[in-house]
């Protein structure tokens, strides 16, 4: 399925804004994403499997922090990051 990558993480995807990864759940998708782009998962998800503050993941247009969210083929996962701070 298609995954949209925010600009702060595109150094992991060789600059690609859209990449492909697969998984039956969001957790599996993120694991696959990390296999394809090593290190990208830990920048978004901490070691307790919490989505880091200001990282936002949308599935079917809904924001989710639940890594067990089920995914269907041909869905699009959108990863975004708030740019607060200075």
């Amino acid at each position, binding site marked *: 399925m298609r995954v949209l990558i925010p600009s*702060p993480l595109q150094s992991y995807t060789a600059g690609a804004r859209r990449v492909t990864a697969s998984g039956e759940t969001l957790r599996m998708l993120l694991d696959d994403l990390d296999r394809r782009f090593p290190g990208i998962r830990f920048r978004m998800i901490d070691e307790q499997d919490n989505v880091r503050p200001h990282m936002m993941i949308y599935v079917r247009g809904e924001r989710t922090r639940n890594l067990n969210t089920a995914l269907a083929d041909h869905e699009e996962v959108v990863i975004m990051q708030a740019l607060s701070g200075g």
Partner: protein
Amino acid sequence: MSALRLLVSTRKGLFTLQSDSRRTRWTLSVPAFLGHIIQHTVADPRSATVLCSAKTGHLGPTIFRSTDGGTSWKEAERPPAFDKAADGSVGRTVAHTFWLTPGHASEPGVWWAGTSPQALWMSADDGLNWASVRGFNDHPDYALRTEDPQGGTPDGPVLHSIRIDPRDANHMYFALSGGGVWETRDHGASWSPLNQGMATVVFDPDAPPSEDQPTSLQWQPIGSDHDPHCVQIHPQWPDVMWQQNHCGIYRLERPATRWRRVGRNMPAHVGDIGFVIETHPRDPDIAWVFPMDGTDVWPRTSPDGNPAVYMTRDRGEHWSCQNSGFPSRAWFTVKRQAMAQDGQDPLGLYLGMTSGEVWCSINEGAHWSQIAAHLPEIYAVETVPV
């Protein structure tokens, strides 16, 4: 004398200053990792490896590695990260890696790191993978020994000043802000506090009872009231230890275990508060500090707006002001990793200010020159021979 590089870690990236062989002309690089918060960048004296601890405002913490002296970088495969907690319990998460120290000369590829929350980490593969040092991080008294991650230091409590005895790879120290100084003699398997004689933020063991120090308060050997800001061991005489504490300047010669507050010999109008302390690599009696204002609400700027380094040549018995070259009025702040020496003769000293200026003395503090300005807030300065 020879050329050297300064690795300048800032809140907005990593900058490099390269000198000529006389250390009088300096060239500033373009920033690496622009926009990343760089806490510490350290070159390995045993190899061409350079490690750099980084995060951004929102992305998780990581460590970048260079094996070609900083020309190219790759990310660590496993940066410091706590174990996943059992379901239903709250686990710890690394906020940032604060401190990096290359391992003992007999252990090539070994590195040590300190994080916030306070934890010690070791890499045995040149910074590629990091493992928790469980002898401290998982000790049953961990919560008593360390500071609550939600309290204390504005950017979180940190583990810092990881110092390795050059005579014995098993003998190490680190310091906790807050939490005191800790020592191991078994390569990190077990740790003991080394805080005797140190005033805490609530209790001075040398002061008589007073209204400011009621008898209900007691000195405690461990706990987050102890706040060493920077600890050094002398590279040639490693029994000599210096410490800039939240509460003053201390010196200790092992095997003694009681720190002595040599900062009481500083001029009273300057005080002995600060973050940094640096040693002379060829003379264990010499040290430098950069005092900061610890009065009122603790501005942590140069006392009375008079920036100066203070030097002792006699183990802290006397201190002399070294302010030649500094502005007569300035309110500088120097963080605990932002003073360095270059090992050359005469010794070069370097200061990085939170206002983005780098200052250099190539005559052991006798005169200071500004060698860079207008950088982001400086967190750390390290020297690298070229």
